[in-house]
């Protein structure tokens, strides 16, 4: 007998799921990818163009206002206040995930909103990061009392961004594995989300105390690292206390030099893939493994969590394997640098792919759930029906703001654009690594295969439903 039918899989946060992309669009999308790739093979430029940011400052006045202490304190307070509201709502509010401020705020507004907007604008999370604000306030307090800076342990450089990569997997695991297999037809319940936020806050502040606020934000703090990765695609950047414009994409080229960075971007692609595939492409495979665990004597909930954990880990391994095969392939081309240098040197080319996956899988969820965020969740954060702060507590979500056709085109468009940007960055990096541009082009057959694999897999996930 199949046990799977007796366990509800639904995420109640999502009242509506996307229709699978139709076969004709899948075919067009995949062909577009191949045509674009053929052109990429004969790409014309022979000198790297993105290795330098071409950073130039914006007007001094704007820079001064945006980066002033008053602005920093205000934004820090705002971030801390919102985190506080989310935790309070989670602890005290309704258990209905779609009516509680906590889940939508933590897992939709911030978790998806920061990647989307950072990729355009630059690092917009840094100024509102509540833990950074609290850590800096604590540091300032220490200085005022002790009259000196607090000392820090030196961060083990070999750890690099691995804590962030593991943390990223943990955040998604919490929502889509732990949460959705709780034996009730909801995702993570708001109370559990609030407890997780408190635990994470304590852990983050402790690590900041040990290694220093900026160091931990750069390498260990999950949200800073994850959102910061996407912000490298964006147009604005801060240098030496000044705000400036830079060539879009160019800041990605210096991102992956810290160990473990490749793991972060691979984890991003892997977790999005898993969430997209668990009720579509992987569904029957998941059922098989699940039944196997049940037959082996595990309880239903444990079996489901174990199964999902195995599949999420397998996604990470699969994505990593494809990337490493590409790297190994490039190594075989005449004039190639060392394997280690290649492995680090091409990791940033996956950032556009990771963003494309996020847009493809969550664009519609974001659009719909943000209507809830800015109407009834803001007016009635606890979801108890007892408050109406802004008079919008009785609003609902209009699922007709975009048609299925529009959603499909955005999904496929995102994957194709991500594919082109990834190829662009990879070609550019190859030009910087290979002395001869012909060898550089030849090496890119391998990265081309990697990108085609990711993009077509992404399309396949969308066509298999429930992305």
């Amino acid at each position: 007998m199949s046990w799977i039918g007796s366990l509800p899989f639904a995420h109640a946060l999502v009242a509506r799921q996307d229709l699978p992309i139709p076969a004709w669009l899948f075919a067009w999308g995949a062909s577009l990818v191949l045509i674009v790739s053929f052109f990429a093979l004969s790409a014309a430029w022979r000198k790297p163009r993105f290795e330098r940011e071409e950073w130039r400052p914006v007007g001094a006045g704007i820079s001064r206002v945006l980066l002033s202490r008053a602005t920093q304190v205000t934004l820090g307070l705002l971030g801390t206040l919102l985190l506080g509201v989310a935790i309070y709502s989670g602890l005290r509010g309704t258990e209905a995930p779609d009516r509680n401020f906590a889940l939508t705020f933590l897992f939709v507004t911030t978790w998806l909103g920061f990647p989307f907007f950072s990729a355009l604008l630059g690092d917009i999370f840094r100024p509102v990061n509540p833990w950074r604000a609290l850590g800096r306030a604590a540091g300032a307090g220490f200085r005022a009392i002790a009259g000196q800076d607090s000392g820090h342990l030196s961060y083990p450089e070999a750890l690099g961004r691995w804590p962030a990569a593991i943390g990223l997997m943990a955040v998604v695991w919490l929502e889509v594995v732990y949460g959705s297999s709780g034996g009730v037809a909801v995702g993570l319940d708001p109370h559990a989300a609030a407890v997780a936020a408190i635990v994470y806050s304590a852990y983050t502040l402790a690590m900041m105390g040990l290694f220093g606020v900026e160091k931990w934000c750069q390498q260990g703090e999950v949200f800073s690292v994850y959102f910061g990765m996407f912000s490298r695609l964006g147009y604005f950047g801060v240098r030496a206390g000044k705000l400036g414009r830079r060539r879009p994409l160019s800041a990605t080229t210096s991102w992956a030099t810290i160990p473990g960075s490749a793991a972060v971007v691979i984890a991003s692609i892997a977790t999005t893939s898993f969430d997209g595939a668990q009720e579509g492409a992987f569904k029957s495979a998941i059922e098989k493994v699940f039944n196997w665990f049940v037959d082996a004597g595990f309880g239903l909930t444990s079996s489901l969590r174990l199964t999902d954990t195995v599949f999420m880990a397998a996604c990470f391994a699969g994505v990593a394997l494809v990337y490493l095969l590409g790297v190994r392939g490039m190594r075989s081309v005449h004039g190639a640098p060392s394997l280690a240098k290649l492995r680090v040197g091409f990791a940033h080319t996956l950032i556009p792919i990771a963003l494309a996956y996020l847009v493809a899988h969550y664009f519609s969820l974001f659009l719909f759930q943000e209507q809830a965020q800015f109407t009834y969740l803001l007016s009635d954060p606890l979801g108890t029906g007892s408050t109406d702060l802004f008079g919008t507590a009785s609003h609902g979500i209009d699922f007709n703001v975009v048609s299925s056709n529009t959603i499909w085109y955005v999904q496929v468009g995102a994957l194709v654009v991500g594919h082109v940007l990834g190829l662009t960055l990879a070609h550019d990096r190859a030009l910087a690594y290979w002395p001869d541009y012909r060898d550089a082009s030849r090496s890119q057959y391998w990265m081309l295969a990697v990108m085609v694999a990711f993009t077509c897999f992404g399309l396949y996930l969308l066509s298999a439903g429930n992305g």
Partner: protein
Amino acid sequence: MNAKTVRIVAAAAVLVVAIVLLIVLKKDDGGEDKPSDAGKFPTINVNKAGEPVSGIVDLTYNKGDQIQFKVHSEVAGEVHVHGYDLMKDVAAGGTITYDFPATIEGVFEAEMEDQKEQIIQLTVQP
């Protein structure tokens, strides 16, 4: 790009487009919509645990159709159609009828709200 590359690219593009057309044409002549049986409401039977007796029922409509089904339940509860956000109470041993226009595209669940059991997977195509 030199002339040879252009020729290769053009040939590849033509090949790809041909394959696509082949796939698209093949998919289309199957005909995608089956006319909904007007007047004949599918009935979903729900047992005492709030579970659908013959598994979660797939109902597919096109936008603009009338969505029509009955739920017969052995247990008292509330039948909730998500997305459309419609709710109806059903008594133990009773039957309720849903009849509403398909105005929102997407995939939706209908569930026995109190038992937290999904009974219908509702798909509305554009």
